[in-house]
Every structure is written in structure tokens, then in C-alpha cells.
């Protein structure tokens, strides 16, 4: 892996002869090596999930979050360096607040995603700063229409709009699983998605990695269309059910 840049990878302001900016690609590697995170637009809202590695048994559960609220009806789940991500979350929050102050309505999700894309892209243009080593999955629910939307903003500043997506270590496996789920349940609600999402994260978790804590949050009727962490009881029930189903599937194999 080392040395493939051959001198064109020393700074983010240098292109390689084949038109790549290696530093930005390396930022993407930081994302690929992090715990899996996924988000799904369900019929009635958005569900976020993150595989939070526990560096130590003494970590207080529920801390060191990877999913952050941006405004009442928007949340952001992070793959990659969470410390970098705090800047992006902070920027998203102030964008949303300033928009509301100016226009007296909640910021449209596409606009917020675009601004974040521009923000992350700006850090790939100058020698004096480095790109963000994280990808943000921004999920919003429109205040009036209640329509959910999901955007993926990458370290290079690209913004993609998804029905559902995953990032991090197990993203390929997770994306395949999500496609299967959505193919079988096109009218999936957030409540139904809880168990399926827990199952996906547990399935793509690599046994060789550390223990993890499942972090889920949602924006749906159960949370009054506000971004909220899924109540502990429901989360534990979903995880228990997911583990039970996975064990049953393994026995079948």
C-alpha cells in the first residue's frame, strides 16, 4: 500500500499523472477502516445505525456517539474519524440555524447536503489543510410533507442521494443486505426496520474486531418526527431478536 502514490501523494494540491488526488483517496481509506454505519429511508421516516467499537470495557455505554442531531428533523451518522466529523456536524447545525433565522422555515435537506458537500470539498483545495477523514450520512424528514431523504457526503465533497446506504468496513455486505430487505419490504416502516437494521450490523460485524455497541436512532412518528435515539428497551428488544434470528440462520447453514 505504501509508495503507490510515488511522490504524487504528498499533498492534496497535487494531481497524479492519471488524474487522481491521492490524499483525498487516502482520506477515503480512513472511512473504509472504520465501523460500519448505515441509514435507511423508510416509509415513515429515517433510521440510522452505527457499529461503535468499544476500545475498552470501561467505556460508559451510550457515550462517544457516532450519530448526531443536526436540527429537529435531521440527523447525521458518521463513518470514519469522528473527531473530524464533529466539525461537519457543527457546520451543519449552524447552516440550519442561520437558514431558519433568515427564512423562518426549516432548511431543505438537499440544500443542507449541498452546503456540506461544498464545505468538505473546500478542505481538498488547499495545501494548508487536510481533507476530512469521514463520510456523513445525512438523513432528514421534511417538516410539512413528512417525506424522508438521505444523503451521503464523502471526503471529496461528492453528495449522493440514496434510498438507503452503508459506509465503513462492512459496507458492501451491508448494502447487499439492505437491498434484499428493501426488495422484500418496499413499504418498510421505521418500527419494522429496527430489527432488520440490528440484524445487518450484527451480521457484517467482523469477529476479529473488538466488541461493539449498537447505536440506533430515528426520525419517525414514534419520536414525534424529531431525531431521537431509539429508546433503550426497543433497541435491546431489536438486538435480542436480531441475534436470535442470526443464530437460527447459522444453524440452518
Amino acid at each position: 500500500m505504501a509508495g503507490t502514490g510515488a511522490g504524487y501523494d504528498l499533498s492534496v494540491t497535487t494531481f497524479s499523472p492519471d488524474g487522481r488526488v491521492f490524499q483525498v483517496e487516502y482520506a477515503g481509506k480512513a472511512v473504509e477502516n472504520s465501523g460500519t454505519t448505515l441509514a435507511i429511508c423508510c416509509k415513515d421516516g429515517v433510521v440510522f445505525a452505527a457499529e461503535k467499537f468499544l476500545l475498552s470495557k470501561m467505556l460508559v455505554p451510550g457515550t462517544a456517539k457516532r450519530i448526531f442531531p443536526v436540527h429537529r428533523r435531521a440527523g447525521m451518522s458518521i463513518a470514519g474519524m469522528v473527531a473530524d466529523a464533529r466539525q461537519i456536524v457543527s457546520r451543519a447545525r449552524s447552516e440550519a440555524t442561520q437558514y431558519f433565522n433568515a427564512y423562518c422555515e426549516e432548511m431543505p435537506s438537499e440544500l443542507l447536503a449541498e452546503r456540506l458537500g461544498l464545505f468538505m470539498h473546500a478542505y481538498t483545495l488547499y495545501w494548508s489543510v487536510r481533507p476530512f477523514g469521514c463520510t456523513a450520512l445525512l438523513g432528514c424528514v421534511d417538516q410539512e410533507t413528512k417525506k424522508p431523504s438521505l444523503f451521503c457526503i464523502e471526503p471529496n465533497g461528492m453528495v449522493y442521494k440514496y434510498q438507503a446506504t452503508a459506509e465503513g468496513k462492512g459496507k458492501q455486505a451491508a448494502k447487499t443486505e439492505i437491498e434484499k430487505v428493501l426488495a422484500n419490504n418496499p413499504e418498510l416502516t421505521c418500527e419494522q426496520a429496527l430489527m432488520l437494521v440490528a440484524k445487518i450490523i450484527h451480521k457484517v460485524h467482523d469477529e476479529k474486531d473488538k466488541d461493539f455497541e449498537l447505536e440506533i436512532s430515528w426520525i419517525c412518528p414514534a419520536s414525534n418526527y424529531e431525531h431521537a435515539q431509539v429508546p433503550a428497551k426497543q433497541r435491546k428488544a431489536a438486538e435480542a431478536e436480531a441475534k436470535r434470528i442470526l443464530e437460527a440462520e447459522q444453524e440452518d447453514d
Partner: protein
Amino acid sequence: MKYKDGVILAADTLASYGSEARYKDVCRLKKVGEYTLLGGGGELSDFQYLSDQLDEMADEDWLNEDGCFMGPKEYSSYIGRVMYNRRSKFNPLYNQFVVVGKKKDEPAHLMYVDHQGTAFEENFVATGFGMHLGIPLLRNSWRADMSLDEAKALATKCLEVCFYRDCRAYCKIHIGVCNGTSVDISAPIPLNHFWGHGAWTEKRLEDDDPTATW
């Protein structure tokens, strides 16, 4: 005023333009955060400005996701400081506020804050003409263990007296209730007012007597 299970706040629905009763359907009560109610008298634009600032603060409080929200004590302290600092810069927010609320199991909180930065806590407060006409009634009738209905009746009576005797009051009111779990602002309630008193409807004098005014 505080009542047995919390605190209520009542205000009429008038926004005057000097002596003109310009906007007669204005809600001067505002829910702040989860547990607090702000009632504002005086300059309505300043009240709206502060309301927006407090909304922003409440949103930031919500973003922390730390399981606790600011309550009436915190908001009233903040508003008190803002008002005092503005007056010290000779740029006051020209309002008299009543900040009330009850956060879960904490005791009910009731604070008066005004444009000079005066801030004090009490069991019952009033602003403007309510201070002169309403407080005596409250002093006579208020008890700490009043039920919600008793408290609402007393507040309504005070505002009725204000409507009768204050030329710049109105006969429709809102009542807001904070009971520790929620903050509810009622729909507008019309006040009962009677003008058929014999003292000025009965003829007292003969038609051709020029001496009297009635």
C-alpha cells in the same frame, strides 16, 4: 400565580399602538423549551425578538442530547441578566416579563423581570395595570394549595377587573398552565362584562333640568 400542582399565567390578547387597540388577537404567552412559559407586556417587537432568541437557545439545548432540558429557573435567570445588561448599555428591551414554569418534580417557579433588569421571585405577580388592580385581589384570595380551577377563576377575575378599569385592556384572554409535565396555552377565552348597571342606565333627572350632568 402558583397553584397546588404548578403555576398559571394569564394575559389579554391585545397589542396596542399607543392608545389604539390595534391587534386584538395576539397571544402574549410563549412556550419556551419544555417546561417554561413567558408572558410579555410592553413593546411587542422586543418580546418577539427575545422569543426568537430563546427558541434558538432551546434548540441548542435540545441538540446536546444529554437528557436534561433548561427549566424556568434557568430561563428566567438568563432573561433577567439579558434585561439588566441591555439597560446598562442604554438599549433596553422595553418589556415587563413574567417567567413561569415547573420542571418535573422541582418546585414551581415564578419570576418577574422588567426592562430595568429588576428580577424577583414571588408566589403571584402581575405587570402593568395588573400590578395596581390585580395584586390586591391576589393578596386577598391567593392560597398555596389552590386547585387549578380556583387559580383560573382568580386570574380571570383579576383580568376582568383590569378590563373594567383600565382603558387599554381587552376582554379576551389566554390562560397558560405549567404543571411539571407539559405547558398548555388555552384557546382565547372571552371575558364576561356587564354594562347594564342601573347607576347609568336609569334616568335620574327630569328632562328640563339643566343643572346636572347625568
